[in-house]
């Protein structure tokens, strides 16, 4: 079925993004069959674990490919040559290899990104309404392989009355940003990387944004700004932009097509939720068995929108699942050895600092 009608999965996903009902487990197994067949590195990874479409009947048994695989292998399950790829940013450990996420076509990615964004970031926007957006990220023209820039452009085109980019290769364009913020007459949305917001709050800028204004930030600091806790960042943002500014964190990564968001604007919960076509499970890093709700584990994502790469991902993040959403405790910092021995990650950090 899958092999003879290769586009049926794409069509089904498009209808799901538009709200059509579906069976998650069934679709996950169908994607597994296709990606196992088409993506040799994923197939080898599964074979090494004796987990194949022939042996698996429950989608929860599908192996999750470590996201590091995107750095070392071509994780592609599309047909023909990919139309585009996005590249991971560097990590805290410096100039290592970047991962690539290949897309056969971008329409699927575009189609899944907009309803999620609207649901979690703009739920109060009237049908057909638009809001000014200020992007604290580089434009896709400047950074064509940044998935965040591309993602923000999609939202700008779909939902912004006007939008512009306030980060360039030299950093935050503070003057232009200040002018734009002072001009705001109604609610605005500022969207961008967490570290860009750190630079913003550290700049000393003070404005009072109109009520209903919101900030969506994502990603870590990755050595690009000082490190602050999310609570501290939000406090500083409200100090700089006004006490009523709503702050929402996005959980996403280059290797995913879909994103998770805080449900602040949906139901007041700061815990995160995902669209119907994404499931997240927290696994014990030792055994890769699912840990019970409330217990921290390594985040495993099944993102069915990853049709052209691999839908089954093992991240390096630590998270906790609760009945009303999940929380990300952060990128695993890398173990520190006890005492006078030095562990790998400490060593890499020390060398990076030097």
């Amino acid at each position, binding site marked *: 079925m899958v092999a003879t009608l290769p586009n049926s999965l794409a069509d089904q996903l498009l209808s799901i993004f538009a709200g059509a009902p579906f069976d998650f487990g069934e679709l996950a197994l169908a994607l597994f069959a296709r990606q196992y067949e088409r993506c040799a590195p994923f197939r080898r990874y599964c074979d090494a674990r004796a987990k194949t479409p022939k042996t698996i009947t429950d989608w929860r048994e599908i192996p999750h490919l470590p996201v590091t695989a995107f750095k070392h292998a071509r994780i592609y399950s599309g047909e023909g040559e990919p139309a585009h790829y996005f590249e991971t940013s560097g990590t805290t450990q410096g100039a290592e290899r970047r991962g690539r996420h290949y897309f056969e076509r971008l329409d699927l990615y575009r189609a899944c990104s907009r309803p999620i964004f609207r649901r979690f970031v703009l739920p109060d926007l009237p049908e057909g309404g638009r809001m000014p957006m200020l992007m604290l990220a580089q434009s896709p023209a400047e950074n064509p392989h940044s998935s965040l820039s591309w993602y923000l452009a999609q939202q700008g085109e779909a939902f912004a009355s006007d939008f512009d980019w306030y980060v360039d290769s030299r950093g935050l364009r503070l003057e232009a940003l200040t002018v734009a913020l002072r001009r705001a007459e109604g609610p605005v949305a500022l969207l961008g990387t967490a570290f860009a917001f750190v630079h913003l709050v550290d700049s000393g800028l003070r404005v009072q944004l109109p009520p209903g204004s919101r900030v969506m930030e994502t990603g870590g600091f990755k050595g690009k700004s000082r490190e602050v806790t999310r609570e501290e960042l939000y406090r500083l943002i409200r100090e700089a932009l006004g006490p009523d500014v709503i702050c929402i964190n996005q959980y996403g990564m280059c290797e995913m097509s879909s994103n998770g968001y805080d449900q602040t604007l949906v139901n007041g919960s700061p815990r995160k939720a995902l669209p119907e076509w994404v499931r997240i499970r927290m696994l014990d890093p030792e055994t890769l068995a699912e840990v019970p709700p409330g217990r921290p584990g390594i985040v495993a994502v099944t993102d069915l929108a990853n049709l052209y790469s691999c839908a089954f991902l093992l991240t390096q993040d630590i998270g906790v699942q609760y009945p009303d959403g999940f929380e990300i405790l952060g990128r695993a910092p890398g*173990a520190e050895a006890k*005492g006078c021995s030095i562990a*790998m990650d400490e060593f890499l950090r020390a060398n990076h600092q030097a």
Partner: protein
Amino acid sequence: MVPRSLTEDVHRRMAAAQRALAERPVDEILAALDRVCRRWLDRSDPIRQEAEDRIATGTGLAPAMLADGLSQMIRRMQGLPALLDADLGSRYALDRFIARPGGIRSMAFGPGLLVCVFSGNVPGIPAFDMALGLALKSACLVRPAAEEPDFAPLFARSVAEVDPDLGACLHVARWAHDDAAPYQRAGAVLAYGSDGSIAAIRRLVPGGVRFIGHGHRLSFACVAAEAATAETASRLALDVAMYDQQGCVSPHMAFIERGGPLSPAAFARAVADALAGLQERMPRGRLTLEEAVALRSARDEAEFTADACYLSPGDLAWAVVHHEEPDFRPSPLGRFLWTYAVDRLADVAPLVAPHSAYLQTVAFAGADAGRLALAEALGRVGVSRVAPVGLVQEPHPLWRHDGRPTAGDLVRWVDVEPEAGGGSW
């Protein structure tokens, strides 16, 4: 509850006990310490049993491994008389002036008060340093690690039971990290820990007080072609497994010379087989979530980059990851060994040289002819100890930890020069 500072009473009692200790002959102290050793080497001794139980529970390390490790630590302590003779010329320099070449007569004084700050990675370490302090006729104020708070007080108790006057010279307490008061009366401070903790402690120690910090260190193994056998692999596995690789002497990686009975890749597999075997007698202990994620990530990375991976199935118990192209990469620890093939062991020194500040022990297997040449090349770039594979966890009693004289660094000498002066030199 951590006391903000030690009470004046503790200091007074320790000072009085130390004054009495200073009057005792070194042989008498060493004899008492030897009785302590014999108690600890008797596995039916109640203190030893209590230590094994509590440390195993507290650290999660395998009981069989801890039992082996404790005995190794005590055996090292038994070498104290030999160490004093080697480091000081004669242990009796602690009792009286001894003659040295050139007509000089010298006497050695211990620090009076030795303050020790221990880390929790290798239980049993405090035995040697506390005994050394006592042998140098000094009181010891000891701060054990939060991760392993049990051994030091039990050791102090065993000393007190064997020799109450000696026991009165020991005090074990956990004071706050930033409390400077405990260091104010120290004659010397000995600290183990991360580079960060060592720097933080150093800032609390008054200027002029001798400070010996054992910070971050990293060890590795070198296997000469002729020694690339399953037997060597099995001994190397023990070096890796002990303390779940958390010791500063634990090898992170092994360089294996090509051309031996086992190819480097086959040697890697043999180490993996041996680690799998050790898992039964001394299973790897518990991991923190961060440690587990670091191990998981390193394995994931290896599966897509290494030439061969030998990974414990179904868990993170052990891993050997092999590359034909040598590199220098510290391990995430927890029984995770990188193996690298090299054409000649002489290729290793240039590889490790950029990391000289961290280098410590090299586990070596091979003919003695190659041992000294390699030791010289590696010594030049920072290595301070070359030990036989399989024995890295049991340092020779004369070991100079991090290349410094262990007892020699803690004493202060008084030299009496002869009337005639040094003219004959």
